[in-house]
């Protein structure tokens, strides 16, 4: 693929540290005797740095607990970095994971508007795309029913439809390729490819499916224990990773 403005950087991450501190939930009684409290810090990311050019597709691989989802959430702004910086260069970003924040009591349609507004779209913009989203989600009359009545498949179908139709500059995709039934899976896979092939869109995919990574990505990052093991060319790293996982 030939890209315009090759040097345009969409994401730069520098020395990113994220830790889960033991400022966990506590009761009033426990917070009285503070001595007992050990400061138990779990570092999910230990100094990750990378840059991604506009229009590129980055895959992130790694075993469970290696910090992949934490990295995505940090990019989406849900977690703040404990150290280091994330610069998105004024691009809009959305995290396409299973279920964008839905309010369970409200109907699917209302949730389309609410999620859209949270992604930074105006009511009018969403109105224009409303039909497209409903058609794509393909959950029939359930769109007018509260989200709590949805099956998990319908839930993710709607979530996918919202983020896929309301396009942002950067899309973060977390294992979502396995959404819904076989038919929707194919449809979403195709839609994903269509979105990804847009030259101006930057995409980061987290997946355990190495075949997907190989097929879609331009670059890949292999995370292990919160650090980047390898970064760069897809085929060679996936091969190394496969060998690592066999051990």
């Amino acid at each position: 693929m030939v890209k315009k403005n090759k040097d345009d950087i969409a994401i730069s991450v520098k020395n990113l540290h994220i830790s889960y501190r033991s400022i966990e939930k506590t009761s009033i009684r426990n917070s009285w005797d503070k001595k007992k409290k050990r400061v138990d810090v779990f570092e999910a990311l230990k100094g990750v740095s990378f840059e991604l050019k506009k229009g590129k597709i980055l895959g992130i691989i790694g075993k469970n607990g290696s910090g992949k989802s934490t990295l995505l959430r940090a990019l989406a702004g849900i977690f703040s970095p404990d150290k280091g910086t994330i610069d998105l260069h004024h691009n809009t970003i959305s995290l396409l994971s299973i279920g964008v924040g839905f309010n369970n009591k409200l109907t699917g349609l209302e949730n389309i508007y609410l999620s859209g507004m949270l992604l930074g779209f105006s009511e009018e913009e969403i109105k224009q795309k409303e039909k497209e989203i409903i058609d794509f989600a393909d959950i029939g009359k359930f769109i007018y029913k509260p989200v709590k009545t949805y099956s998990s498949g319908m839930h993710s179908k709607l979530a996918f439809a919202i983020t896929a139709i309301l396009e942002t500059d950067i899309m973060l995709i977390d294992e979502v390729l396995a959404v819904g039934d076989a038919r929707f899976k194919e449809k979403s896979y195709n839609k994903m490819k269509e979105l990804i092939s847009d030259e101006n869109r930057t995409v980061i995919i987290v997946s355990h499916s190495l075949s997907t990574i190989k097929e879609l990505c331009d670059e890949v990052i292999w995370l292990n224990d919160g650090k980047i093991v390898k970064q760069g060319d897809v085929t060679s790293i996936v091969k190394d990773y496969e060998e690592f996982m066999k051990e």
Partner: protein
Amino acid sequence: MKKFCINIKKYYKYALYSAKAELKSEVAGSYLNWLWWIIEPLCFMLIYTFVFGYIFKSNIEYFPVFIFTGLSAWEFFNRMITGSVKLIINNRGLVTKVYIPKYILLLAKSFTYLFKLFIAWLLNLVLMLCLGVPFTWHLVLALPILIVLYVISFGLGLLLMHFGVYLVDLANLVKIGLRMLFYLSGVFYSIRGRLDSLLGSILLKANPIAFIMDEFRKVFMYGQLPNFLFLFIWFVIGIILCAIGIHVIHKNENNYAKVI
């Protein structure tokens, strides 16, 4: 503070839409629908009127209006405080999936509570008409009093929302505190009439809810001017609370997703 203004500008439409949707969903499933918004406050008023007007023989004039005015203000405060403690946890699905300034959640909630308060006030006006309470131009002054009530509730709510994330049993403590405050606020008795002047005036000045209820009654029922000096003092205190709350939330909001 600048960040707060930008965020409010950016997200207030979201808050409005979310409040509207929430109100709609609240009534969509029930048989009597939106009538509940009227039935509920009306029934509470009747209960209190019966218990305190007839059993305890209160001799306050226009007792139902007296109760209703206090009760509507109390309900707003009560909802704000109770609602904010568990607000982040109840919105787990949202908080862990997208970024949203957390006070927007409280803002959206407060819109629904404000709506309910206005319904209660409409009922109150009807009640006043029925019981022949004289209407005066002082009614307009309910608005500045409401602003003071809102600012105080919002500020307290922000702080409780923050601590509610970390302290699991804060809700219990708040419940006890609210119950105490309820009885100390004179919802169903007149602080002026029941307590001796020293204790009464301390209570009316130090307890913002008692004070605000008293001011509401002045403008609704008695055609009197509110105590502007103390309104201003409580307004300033409320603004300070809000500023602290906003600061604390800006500093910590991104950690919430890690804890819940």
